[in-house]
């Protein structure tokens, strides 16, 4: 027994040594590696499960969609090289490229498109299903043609970022597994092939030789996860990573003072909101007083958004109003009479008019039945900015006689609370698309239990939502989208606190050709994969950073060697005895 243990122990050590040295040597050809520091990692590698921005970013590198956006955010051909629409605007015919292969060598055909779209339409899973709303039928008459029929005209057909998935892989997954199957090794047609995902560490992609985009200048692309933005900023300065996203505002100047680093505050399509539980059927566990519009309005009047923005976010971003961010064509700006700007007197006045008085003199107003305006604000513990914004808000609403208690929970725990409808309010944010459909969809009744985070439901809103997708004339459609935003602003299931800026930094001494998209926008998270395809390594600059992908490398070999030496001497000693 004992002997066996010794032998196997030595074997394991020898084997692990071999593995270590193997992984250390295969990085030999010195590929051009770009490392991007991120603070959030993908929540899932399955496009049916992921709801995150980083997921969207990674999927548009691994997969392709029929059409995509270029650096001017104009629609350009993707997997479809050409398309036309019938005269009645109800039938779209896409001509697909015939030379595309999946990363595993299987040819891409129209059957893949039909499979993906039908699967999404039937199951309504994930962040991409919203793009397909209104589609009734998908036909694949031959290998390179896809015909999509809709009941009504579909305005956002060419704003469809939905990744096309390989039918030959996903058809082996049974339908009841779609929302759990991890897709742990995605196969796509995109410019980058998936190589490795280590949760809590990094996600590694490698350039694909076989892509219609042309081979990218980046050979290896690694998203390195940082738990702390300070460390991430330091890593950019030291050249350990080539780019960083979402560092904190206080690091902006430090980074920008560096000649080889371009640090920007990019305007992105996204916002941070205070979301109320609007669940209003009889079984609801939502706070009844939070269903009253005057209470929500008074809360908004009492929040000095600009001050929070200045203090917590170092002034990065702008004060928020309505659901569709102002960068797009569809943003509705409330009129002066509708607009609720910071005004504590007004907040108190609104509450007084609605009959909320402080009857017992404890500084908190009560409804006529004595229920106090006392709510629980849930914050994500791992997001220090949101926690501090929440604290400031709690201090501000107290001026209007409203009490916010604060609890901080883990991100996952908050999601559980939202699905269970067991919350009063919380703070987090959304990223939006150029086309308003996906963000408007969040507030529709059908999304309760999936994307909806406020349990908001309004029949007029739902009707307008379905209708706006069918209006082909942008101006006419905008009227409708404006009306929807007006309804939301009036009923205030969200208080949009800020339109976010995304802080990004790139190293210009090692990589060149960075483009901000749009002009005030970012290098990353800008709804396109343009920069990943177009930046080029600067000639003659050697990659100085340790190989994050090969991992253990030299240090690992030393440690492994020490362990072997230690165990060997231990065994020798025992034998001598």
């Amino acid at each position, binding site marked *: 027994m004992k002997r066996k243990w010794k032998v196997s122990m030595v074997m394991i050590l020898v084997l692990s040594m071999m593995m270590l040295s193997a992984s250390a040597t295969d990085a030999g050809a010195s590929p051009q590696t770009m490392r991007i520091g991120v603070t959030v990692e993908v929540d899932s590698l399955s496009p049916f499960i992921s709801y995150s921005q980083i997921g969207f970013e990674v999927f548009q590198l691994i997969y392709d969609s029929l059409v995509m956006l270029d650096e001017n955010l104009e629609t350009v051909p993707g997997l479809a090289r050409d398309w036309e629409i019938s005269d009645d605007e109800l039938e779209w015919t896409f001509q697909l490229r015939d030379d595309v292969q999946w990363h595993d060598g299987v040819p891409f055909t129209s059957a893949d498109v039909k499979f993906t779209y039908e699967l999404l339409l039937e199951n309504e899973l994930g962040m991409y299903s919203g793009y397909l709303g209104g589609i009734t039928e998908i036909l694949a008459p031959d290998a390179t043609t896809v015909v999509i029929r809709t009941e009504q005209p579909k305005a956002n057909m060419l704003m469809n970022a939905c990744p096309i998935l390989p039918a030959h892989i996903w058809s082996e997954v049974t339908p009841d597994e779609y929302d759990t199957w991890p897709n742990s090794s995605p196969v796509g047609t995109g410019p980058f092939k998936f190589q490795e995902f280590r949760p809590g560490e990094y996600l590694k992609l490698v350039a694909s030789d076989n892509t219609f985009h042309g081979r990218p200048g980046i050979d290896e692309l690694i998203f390195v996860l940082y738990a702390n933005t*300070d460390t991430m900023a330091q890593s950019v300065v030291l050249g350990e990573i080539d780019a960083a996203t979402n560092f904190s505002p206080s690091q902006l100047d430090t980074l920008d003072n560096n000649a080889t680093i371009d640090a920007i505050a990019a305007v992105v399509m996204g916002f941070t909101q205070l979301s109320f539980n609007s669940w209003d059927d009889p079984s609801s566990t939502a706070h009844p007083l939070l269903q009253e519009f005057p209470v929500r309005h008074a809360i908004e009047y009492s929040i000095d958004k600009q001050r929070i923005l200045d203090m917590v976010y170092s002034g990065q971003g702008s004060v928020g109003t309505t659901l569709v961010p102002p960068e797009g064509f569809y943003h509705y700006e409330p009129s002066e009479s509708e607009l609720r700007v910071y005004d504590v007197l007004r907040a108190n006045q609104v509450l007084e008019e609605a009959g909320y008085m402080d009857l017992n003199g404890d500084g908190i107003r009560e409804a006529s039945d004595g229920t106090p305006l006392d709510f629980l604000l849930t914050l994500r513990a791992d997001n220090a900015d949101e926690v501090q914004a929440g604290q*400031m808000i709690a201090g501000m609403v107290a001026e209007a006689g409203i009490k916010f208690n604060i609890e901080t929970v883990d991100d996952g725990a908050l999601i559980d609370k939202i699905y269970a409808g067991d919350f009063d309010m919380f703070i987090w944010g959304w990223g939006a698309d150029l086309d308003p459909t996906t963000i408007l969809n969040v507030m529709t009744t059908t999304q309760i239990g999936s994307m909806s985070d406020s349990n908001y439901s309004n029949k007029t809103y739902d009707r307008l939502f379905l209708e706006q997708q069918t209006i082909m004339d942008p101006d006419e459609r905008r009227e409708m989208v404006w009306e929807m935003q007006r309804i939301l602003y009036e009923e205030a299931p969200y208080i949009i606190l800020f339109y976010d800026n995304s802080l990004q930094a790139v190293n210009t001494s090692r990589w060149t050709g960075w483009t901000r998209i749009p002009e005030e926008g970012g290098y990353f998270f800008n709804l396109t994969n343009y920069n990943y395809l177009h930046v080029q390594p600067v000639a003659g600059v050697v990659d100085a950073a340790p190989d994050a992908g090969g991992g253990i490398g030299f240090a690992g070999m030393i440690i492994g060697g020490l362990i072997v030496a230690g165990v060997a001497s231990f065994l020798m000693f025992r034998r001598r005895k």
Partner: protein
Amino acid sequence: MSSIDGVMRRKKLKRFWNGFKNNRMATTGAVILVFFSVAAVIGPVLFPYNPMEFGTVETILQPPSTTYYLGTDNLGRDIFRNLLSGARISLMVGILATLISMFLGTSIGIMSGYFGKTIDSVLMRVTDFFLVIPWLPLVLVLVAILGSSVWIIILVIGLTSWAGTARVVRSQTLSVKERPFIERARAIGADHSTIMMHHILPNVFPLVFANTILVTAVAIISETTLSFLGLGDPTRPSWGMMLHYAFQSGAASSGAYWFFLPPGLCVVLVVLGFTFLGYAFDEILNPKLRRR
């Protein structure tokens, strides 16, 4: 009888006091703790602090000055005042959590040692479980599930830190219960609870006391750890929360030493104070360790 008892007790106390004042560790620890206790009790009265009151853009991260003795934090709040309120919270969490831990550890230890046999085996296996379980992951999960109110943090720390005390108390109980006076008590018909409460507890108490002080140090560190990791009570600005905010806002890289240094030093000093005192008591009260 009672007068002899009283004389004995006075004598013991005197011996304890002599040991205490001649022990440098004990006096240093006591001075530190008295200082912080006074600060925690009087400080927030003299310098009240409202964590919900924020400064303006101009008062963010101000270095120490005559207006702000220790500067301001990233939301323009006075760090000196925050530090005083933090002392109250950190000490309160430490002491309350220790009370829970001491109560559990002592009762489980005495019962285990006194009854022996099956009860001993069961209780000691439970104790072993709490001893070997990785403390931090357990506490992180508990706080994540139960929420991060200060009372829950006290409870969680109390419920997870009693195992060491239970072990020590059990071994002392095993030796005490074999002494003749216990047999005598049993012979005159004292029941189990009387023996445990009136005869064993007073004899193990000095040990419990020394142990308790050490547990307090651990409890304060625990609270700081949890808060630093972002699981603290955001409405109660403990020292750990201050460190958390300092770390999150990048105070270290932007050179705002006044943000993270004071709470850090305070935690170190208070924990040092409790540790000194704990070891010193152990030395004074435990005859085997007493220096001759």
